[in-house]
């Protein structure tokens, strides 16, 4: 087995020489997770707003369920989605199993509770006067909702970053419903798991570096944006 230093060197070479297989895995990972976020974020944030501001029957039950789902293991989500999409499942006729769409569904199930819980907390912490001021100045309720969203944008951005961080790194759901098919459903976490099991650590470390860099960039960007949120005269 190569030493850790040699393996890391090989990983960096793979990364910076533009290894097509490696970059294809990175592209699939981002494509799937960004689409999952794109579909999940608007729905989750509007629902979070309604839970905070609306009179929804059973609101407390919904909030409790969402908080419980925060701790759900990705592999359990994968199993559930698998059962729904498998040939004998209720959605089997759609033939979505082992496709990117199945991976997106699994990742949406994982990120919606985070977006909902953190979004709801951000809306609850917002000053209710923002909502009333927007309405009295002529905003329709949906415009007033966007105004409140703008007022709590840093909290919502943190929710989005946290949710994206969860789904781009999850392996259980993607492995089960995606099938880890090369050039189609193999993403960064499933590739790391596979390469490690084969003893091919270079590609695993290279992909790990990508995930670490991503986490660093996202957190740095969030800190910069939130830093701008400091009120200055």
């Amino acid at each position, binding site marked *: 087995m190569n030493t850790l230093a040699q393996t890391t060197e090989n990983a960096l070479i793979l990364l910076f020489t533009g290894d097509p297989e490696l970059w294809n895995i990175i592209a699939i990972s981002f494509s799937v997770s960004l689409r999952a976020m794109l579909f999940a974020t608007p729905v989750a944030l509007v629902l979070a707003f309604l839970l905070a501001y609306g009179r929804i029957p059973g609101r407390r039950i919904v909030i409790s369920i969402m908080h419980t789902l925060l701790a759900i293991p990705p592999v359990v989500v994968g199993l559930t989605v698998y059962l729904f999409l498998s040939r004998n499942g209720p959605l089997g006729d759609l033939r979505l199993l082992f496709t990117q769409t199945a991976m997106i569904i699994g990742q949406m199930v994982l990120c919606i509770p985070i977006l909902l819980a953190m979004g709801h907390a951000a809306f609850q912490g917002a000053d209710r006067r923002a909502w009333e001021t*927007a*309405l*009295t*100045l*002529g905003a329709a309720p949906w415009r007033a909702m966007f105004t409140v969203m703008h*007022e709590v944008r840093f909290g919502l951005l943190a929710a989005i970053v946290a949710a994206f961080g969860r789904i781009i790194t999850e392996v259980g759901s993607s492995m089960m419903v995606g099938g880890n098919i090369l050039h189609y459903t193999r993403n960064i976490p499933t590739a790391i798991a596979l390469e490690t099991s084969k003893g091919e650590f270079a590609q695993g470390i290279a992909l790990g570096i990508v995930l670490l860099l991503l986490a660093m960039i996202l957190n740095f960007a969030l800190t910069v944006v939130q830093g701008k949120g400091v009120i*200055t005269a």
Partner: protein
Amino acid sequence: MMDQARRPLLRYHELEKRFSGDLLFEIPEFSLHGGDCIVLSGRNGTGKTTLLKILAGLIAPDKGWVECGGKRYSWPKAKDHCRRNVIYLHQQPYMFDRSVAANIDFGMRLAGVPAPARRRRTDEVLAWGGLEYLAGRNARVLSCGEKQRVALARAKVLSPKALLLDEPTASMDKEACEKAYFLIKRLQSEGIAIVIAAHEPQAIRRIANRLLQLDAGKLIDQTVLKVSDHDDAPRECFRE
């Protein structure tokens, strides 16, 4: 026939609000006329803020209907007419996390006013409120008095028929109060109906022409029409 000038802008009928089944207030009729300056007094918890928010269409009463432009509207339709004509200002006005100019621009942008007209109107209103020097400043960092003046300017730019002010001079020093009263008086002289909720109405009696008191769920009119000793013109004053 009713004098056109004294026809109410909005007339609220049979307003009733309850909290957890307990009656907060019951008001058979309440009218807003152009140029009115009504002081609404009452102890804490009598429902002054709730009443103002109902008048502004921000919360719904348990019962009641509104007459506007000769037509009768019941809730929830009535709230659209209230919101279109009435602006409510919180005790400590909420400032959006943006510049003073952008705060003033907010309502006009919603109304779809073209950008050049918005800029011109914003400049005019900033000058009206003596706020030019604050135009680019984040509205969140202003003093209470400055926030109140920005809120008045932000309301004025939308040309409402009525303005409802909830304890507008609470936690303000004398100078800031004077500046706020000056602007309120100017709005009143422009024909806007003003309603001011005040815990201690003494200080604002001089700019008011009607004094109402909310007590034990009833709205009591304390305005007395008197004829002056020096001339025959009737004028309104208040019971002590």
